[in-house]
């Protein structure tokens, strides 16, 4: 009996783990075979410039029908890193317009990387365009799905852009979201 209960508990835990993991490649037997149906399965795969983290053994399982966004960690590639560095140097010499152009080049290389959008949004705040920075923050947040750190940075950008517009209450809420996603270490 004990062994049976043990097996059930183990089975339950394993079931929970599997439910949390991204689905296996499923090939609908009676769906029309097409490259598109073969390709698009479950959550989107990690784009270039991201590193897929292994599914974490989280203790709170997500609702089974909800396919949680794949955990990802966005990083910048070498080319984008170089351009972001150049933009920072241009920013130091207060050439914000040039810095934006440089960051747009980085965006051409990694258009789906939220980190580049965050950099561009930050540059817009410095250049006195908080409305644009807000749009870029929202865009970064959309792209950062699955990466809490990138999401937190996006919320920080949104908060800063709201503050720059004098929308302090909304900025406070955005800051709270940033902190919740990526608590700062004391």
């Amino acid at each position: 009996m004990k062994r049976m209960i043990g097996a059930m508990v183990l089975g339950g835990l394993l079931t929970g783990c599997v439910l949390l993991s991204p689905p296996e490649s499923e090939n609908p037997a009676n769906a029309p075979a097409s490259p598109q149906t073969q390709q698009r399965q479950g959550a989107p795969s990690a784009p270039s410039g991201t590193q897929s983290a292994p599914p974490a053994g989280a203790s709170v399982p997500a609702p089974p029908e909800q396919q949680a966004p794949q955990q990802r960690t966005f990083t910048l590639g070498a080319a984008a890193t170089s351009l972001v560095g150049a933009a920072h140097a241009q920013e130091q010499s207060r050439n914000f317009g040039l810095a934006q152009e440089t960051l747009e080049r980085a965006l051409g290389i990694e258009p789906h990387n939220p980190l580049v959008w965050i950099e561009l949004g930050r540059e817009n705040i410095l250049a006195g365009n908080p409305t644009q920075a807000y749009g870029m923050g929202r865009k970064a947040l959309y792209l950062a799905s699955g990466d809490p750190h990138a999401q937190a940075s996006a919320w920080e950008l949104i908060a800063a852009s709201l503050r720059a517009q004098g929308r302090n209450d909304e900025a406070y809420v955005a800051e709270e979201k940033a902190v919740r996603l990526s608590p700062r270490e004391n």
Partner: protein
Amino acid sequence: MLLAGLLGCGAYIYYLNLVVTHRFEGLRWTLPAHVYAAPVDLYAGLNFSPMQLEHELQRLSYHRVVDLEHPGTYRLTGDRIDVALRAVQFADGSRPASVLSVTFGPAGIQDMRDSTGREVPVTRLDPLLIGSLFPIDGVDRIVVTPQEVPPLLPAALKAVEDRSFDTNRGVDPLAILRAVWVDLRSHRYQEGGSTLTQQLVRSYFLSNRQTMGRKVREAIMAISLASHFSKTDLMNAYINEIFLGQDGNRSIHGFGLASEFYFGKPLAELDLPQIATLVAIVRGPTYYDPRRHPQRTLARRDLVLQILAQQRVINAAQAQDAQRQPLGVTTGASGAYYPAYLELVRRTLQRDYPERELTEAGLRIYTSLQPRAQELAERSLDTQLQVLDKRHHRRDAKLEGAVVVTSPQSGDVLAIVGARQADFDGFNRALDARRSIGSLVKPFIYLTALETGRYNAATVIQDQPVSIKLANGRYWRPENFTRRNYGPVPVVRALAESLNDATVGVGMDVGLDKISGTLQHFGLEHAPDQVPAMLLGAIDISPLEVAQLYNGLADGGFRTPLRAVQAVVSADGKPLKAFPLQVSQVAPTADVYQVETMMEQVMTHGTGVPAMRILPPGLVTAGKSGTSSQDRDSWFAGFSGGNLAVVWVGYDHYQPTGLTGSEGALPVWAHLMASLGTPPLELPAPEGVTQTWIDYLTGMAAQPGCAGAVPVQIAVPTGTQVPPMPGCGGATTVGRLFDRAGQLLHRLTH
């Protein structure tokens, strides 16, 4: 009387002297604006083959050599390409001439180094000159400094056109006397005998009328010029001023532009036979047009080379070697000519710049144009329209078309094709053809419906006959394309198969004003007439405006104003105006995500299916077809992970084409997308939505493998309960649990 005559002559000479010195001192050519394509960024990791890089280099008129000689050359060694990059001016700065070594691996560019072996993380190729915005008189030129002129050119000009240039005082009396004698004997103007200074005077100050009076004026002014200015100044002015060809309504002035026009490269890079060809053309740019009269021009060039050898400018061996070379002019009237795109550039800048400044101030305009995308778009349209013309032949008209390609994330307009004959500067359909968009409006209707919270992709709606009483008391009774109704269908199917009656039902329920609002948020410039026919796309807009609307869909509900111009720089390299990227959210990402997922089903189960035979395996796309009433307009708009393309096909005079969107525009779109090398669509799933499987026909929950079901994956708001398909297990939640448990059991037992 004699005194009066002398005084009059003196006054006239004094007047001409004043004119010459005043105008020449302040010599400032009207400089057309030069327009450049977006430069290609190179970096390690770019999926670029050696062949692709070589193609890009050749587009920029780089020449393959064995040993790198000078900027504008490259060499190919195994899996490495060494490029001697030219010094160039970008919108955000300049780059000196430098050497770049690019090493390729299986996945593309593996490594880039400079001449010292230092790693180069990212660099740009030259921006391709794609045209000029020139004034109404059509004068186009590229001004060169004396340092940019190969020394052989002035030497050759002197040897062939004016041997006494260094010593004469603007005129060569012996040459004039000889010319007068020849003219008198033949009773007509036959020989000129003009010095280079006289030719300069004629081109800069006078008309081309060949009268004795003008010859006298020309001589006086030439003497005046020669007495006031140095020979170096005169030669430089001549090299920049002289007329050297005609390209439609555009006059090619100066050797700088002529070099680009005939050989596609800067003047400094021309070799001996090419310099000789340009010197040959001076004698008569129309008569010695190397493209229209190659044999005649070749003979004249060889004569020029012979004269150069006789005059010891070059040696005999050099002349003979050069005479063995072909003319080597580029095939097109100009290497890259995209009139439809240039028109968008002109219109963009007309808002900020008066015409005169735009066409005479020597502005450098940097655009978003991607030459490769442009060429592929032109080719796809032309090739497919030829196929369609054969199938749907009309004697009285030829099918026309337009294509717009964008990069959804940045809003950059990468390509515009305004006609099937893309290099003809005529009616620009991409910008100016306002045509009914048909079912292209449907994604916006369903997006508006989703935003109400009362619909999702699995919601079952009724596809049944619709009858709507109009304001004039008449009834509007739209029909499906197949003229039959399908009863209860899920929203995803209604969109994928473009069911008119089902969509009109949803649209009327949601409200025309709300749908109009959605369209305007996405970039529709003018509010459409709020009549029921709007729900079937009775909205007349251009392909460019459609691209603006769909760009927002392709970009997750973010509106980015499309831009053709990125920056304007003054003639001396000073940044004048930038067009920075702008972005604003115009719809909830969760709702747009659901619509995008449904538009993927258009490609796999709906009207986009024919594209799947053309698209490469694995290229996930989403799109929508559109057909206006009586098949007058055939549309397709769709996107991948990197590009949006909008295609329109139809007749200019609104005759029915007999083509639906799937039959006319879709093949053009699919061939274009297949050739672009664009990445697959990979949408980031936003919070608040869940992907689930339903039966495409009934909208009920049905996992893959469920007998009798056509399972499709859609996105619905998290927590949505989709009723189960009979015989397919429980609702989605339960079904998934069973599936997962089954998988687990399978793993444990195998």
